[in-house]
């Protein structure tokens, strides 16, 4: 069985090469970030297969990867927001969204692309 798991893990790794291509190609930063997300999920899968092939203790590594998978993407959306520390779900135009618009307005003008 462990040969099968290693073969599966190899195939899964190979499929991640497509994600590497997308990170290289872009064109939007969001494309790159989501491709990194794909590598994160695929990496969890590879760790699981390795764990099945050799040592189940490796599951902890997969758990760490899964737990922290979203962190880079969250930092990314924060960096993309108008003042570099917001949340894309905040509505910068209408104050009715329940957020304080004054925290958002100052950074808006110089950063709009």
């Amino acid at each position: 069985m462990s040969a099968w798991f290693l073969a599966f893990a190899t195939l899964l790794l190979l499929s991640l090469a497509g994600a590497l291509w997308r990170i290289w190609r872009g064109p939007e930063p969001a494309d790159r970030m989501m491709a990194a997300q794909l590598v994160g999920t695929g990496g969890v899968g590879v760790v699981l297969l390795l764990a099945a092939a050799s040592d189940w203790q490796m599951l902890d590594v997969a758990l760490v990867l899964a737990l922290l998978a979203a962190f880079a993407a969250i930092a990314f959306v924060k960096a993309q927001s108008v003042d570099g520390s917001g949340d894309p779900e905040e509505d910068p135009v209408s104050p009715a969204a329940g957020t304080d618009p004054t925290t958002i307005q100052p950074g808006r003008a110089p950063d709009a692309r």
Partner: protein
Amino acid sequence: MPADIVTLVLCGAGLVFFFAGTAGIIRFPDTLTRLHALTKADNVGLGLLITGLAFQAPDWQSVGKLVLIWAMALIAAGTTAQLVARSALQQQDTSQ
């Protein structure tokens, strides 16, 4: 051994979904469709993989960890897909 066969079939099916996700991220025409392809296919693939491997787990703690891993991956993927999509939409709006 029937458990082994179930494992292999489920893991193989999971791999197919992973490859579908990769095909999507390479082939789809724009950011939002690529995002869509990847977050769905990937997590189904991981789920099938985990279900398959659960048949091989040596003890119940490992099965619990496997389920927890999938839960974490789903929560992370759902959150990031929503946030990155919204962020990409805003970037499109401001650039037009």
